[in-house]
């Protein structure tokens, strides 16, 4: 039998049973509206969460950070110079998703500390510090500072491994208070107070405005900047530690390929972590083994944005799964009545099927007639459901808009959108068909496989 004839016969049968067909299609319409509404909400949540993330990224960019193990001052948990070099190499490979990196060196370098008439007074922290060479041997109050490396903005390649040091304006003011006016070109000494020696002589290469420098509010320390390779060389010689590497990245202006950019950021994070040593545990070996089993790699290098988007992805997946399960539940609860309608239809058409078999229709043809009738009813129902969904779309928008307004309102300006995924009606039809066919499989198989005379003898 040609497929067009099968459709013609099915349409004829449906028209002949208009009341039952319409009732079944109405059930399909109501259920498919509910199903598609639920899935629209789920996908809209996911889509808007992702869009909000992109909007945030477009306006603020992202920051990466490579942390020493939090809460530990233990030397072995610090970022090693090798790790920093590995990080730099990988960062050069991912230059398109990298910004300027800053290496922090906390609790280590102190400028103008203590009594400088001699080296006999150790620094509270590590026992070494900077001072302008002009002040060597003079006494003044201590001014603590951190040293940081800030790459890419003001540094020349030579500076990275050179003797340049940049002072922030506020540090210059602090030095003023002890009677010395620090200027570009002045020499600054790095002193090893413990060993009574000058470790390195720096030249002041620039004064940074306050907005360009950092202050560790926790310790009220003011930062000055030296080249990264210089700092690493110092660290390798036992002067100071690398505590924190961070990097701000802003997306390029104008149009950019967000998914590709995000993939690169993700790959960058993964590659850096692969080059880092894995976190170890001081405590229970069992806990360490469990950590190795579950995580099994370093997670010290992180991008807040990438992590947030990964969490959003997981959350979106959960939300979609919950809405999908709800939709499936609605389908399962209602599909029985649609399947029942198919069974009744088969029963009512038994004489017709018997006649068709007698004149040569095979089992495949019988199954095709039943399936086409079901397909047409489901298509009509889902189409009506789409019309109803269109009417309900403002409600979906209201729900999503309120939710995102509540979640993001104080954080960023975001306009929610709701759209019905194109695959949704097709998926609803497919699910309806598959589930209904599963529910009515027994009757369909029976009528298709039954002998002609057995079919005809069942007709009353």
């Amino acid at each position, binding site marked *: 039998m040609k497929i067009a004839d099968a459709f013609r016969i099915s349409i004829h049968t449906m028209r002949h049973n208009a009341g039952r067909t319409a009732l079944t299609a109405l059930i399909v319409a109501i259920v498919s509206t509910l199903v598609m509404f639920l899935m629209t909400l789920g996908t809209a949540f996911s889509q808007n969460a992702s869009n909000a993330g992109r909007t945030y990224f477009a306006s603020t960019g992202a920051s990466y950070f490579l942390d020493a193990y939090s809460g530990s001052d233990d030397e072995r948990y610090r970022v090693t110079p090798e790790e920093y070099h590995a990080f730099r190499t990988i960062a050069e490979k991912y230059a398109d998703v990298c910004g300027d990196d800053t290496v922090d060196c906390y609790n280590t370098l102190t400028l103008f500390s203590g009594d400088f008439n001699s080296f006999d007074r150790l620094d509270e922290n590590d026992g070494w510090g900077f001072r302008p060479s002009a002040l060597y041997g003079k006494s003044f109050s201590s001014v603590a500072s951190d040293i940081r490396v800030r790459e890419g903005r003001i540094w020349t390649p030579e500076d990275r491994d050179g003797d340049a040091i940049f002072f922030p304006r506020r540090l210059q003011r602090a030095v003023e208070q002890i009677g010395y006016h620090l200027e570009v070109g002045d020499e600054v000494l790095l002193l090893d107070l413990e060993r009574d020696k000058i470790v390195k002589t720096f030249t002041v290469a620039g004064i940074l405005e306050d907005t360009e420098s950092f202050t560790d509010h926790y310790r009220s320390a003011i930062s000055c900047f030296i080249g990264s390779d210089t700092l690493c060389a110092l660290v390798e010689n036992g002067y100071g530690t690398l505590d924190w590497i961070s990097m701000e990245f802003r997306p390029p202006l104008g149009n950019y390929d967000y998914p590709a950019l995000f993939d690169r950021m993700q790959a960058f994070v993964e590659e850096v972590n692969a080059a880092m040593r894995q976190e170890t545990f001081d405590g229970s070996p069992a806990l360490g083994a469990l950590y190795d089993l579950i995580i099994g790699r370093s997670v010290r290098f992180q991008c807040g944005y990438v992590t947030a988007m990964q969490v959003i992805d997981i959350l979106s997946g959960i939300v979609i799964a919950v809405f999908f399960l709800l939709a499936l539940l609605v389908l399962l609860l209602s599909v029985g009545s649609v399947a029942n309608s198919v069974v009744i239809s088969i029963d009512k058409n038994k004489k017709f099927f018997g006649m068709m078999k*007698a004149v*040569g229709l095979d089992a495949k043809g019988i199954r095709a007639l039943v399936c086409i009738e079901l397909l047409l009813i489901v298509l009509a129902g889902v189409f009506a459901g789409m019309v109803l969904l269109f009417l309900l779309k403002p409600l979906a928008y209201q729900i999503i808009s309120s939710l995102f307004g509540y979640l993001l309102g104080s954080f960023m300006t975001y306009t929610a959108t709701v759209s019905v995924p194109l695959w949704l009606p097709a998926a609803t039809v497919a699910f309806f068909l598959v589930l209904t066919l599963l529910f009515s499989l027994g009757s369909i198989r029976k009528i298709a496989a039954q002998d002609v005379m057995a079919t005809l003898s069942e007709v009353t």
Partner: protein
Amino acid sequence: MIELKHVDKIYGKGDGAVHALKDVCVTIRDGKFTAILGKSGSGKSTLMNMIGGLDSPTAGEVWSDGKLLGALNKNQLAAYRNRTTGFVFQSFYLEPTFTVLDNVAMPLIIAGMKRKEREARAVELLEKLGLADKIHKRASELSGGQKQRVSIARALVHGPSVVLADEPTGNLDSQSGREVMELLKRVADEGKAVVLVTHNIADAKYAEDVIFLRDGVAEMRGPIAESENLYGE
């Protein structure tokens, strides 16, 4: 030619088993009008169903033009029914909501013939059977006699080699019954094998060959004489 060799048909099992056909050996000749005659419950419809591939024997073989029907699967049997046989049922088995044209063309629809071609064939046949004015009427709007003629048209439209008619006059008045029998006779005269299942001796008298069935046992014989009463009543 259709041959039944030592065909047995038993319905059910154990004490309740019904032996509908017992070692039946009969031959349906091509182009001949054959009647299967017997009282109600004698097994004649069962025999017709065997010949038409609607039912399978418990034992024995049914051969149709050199093909063993028992060796065919369900789909092949459906194709056999669609190409080789035409059925005329006592209760017509027309689809009441379809037009006469669609009902007649049904075997051709199943065979996948193009619409134009099949409708031309059906119209030609309906005109030949005097139903030209009923072509676009629904089957439910016809009289019993007209329905049976439509049923005969459906049995002939695909050019089968054998037409099987199961009590075709059973639901008709005597005038319509006669017309239907005349029509089937004409079909046989035109070279088709016609197998008539009937309990009516008057109808069986149209046949050239008669298979007389009594309690599932078949006896082949020639035409029934005008005055002959096989039931002995």
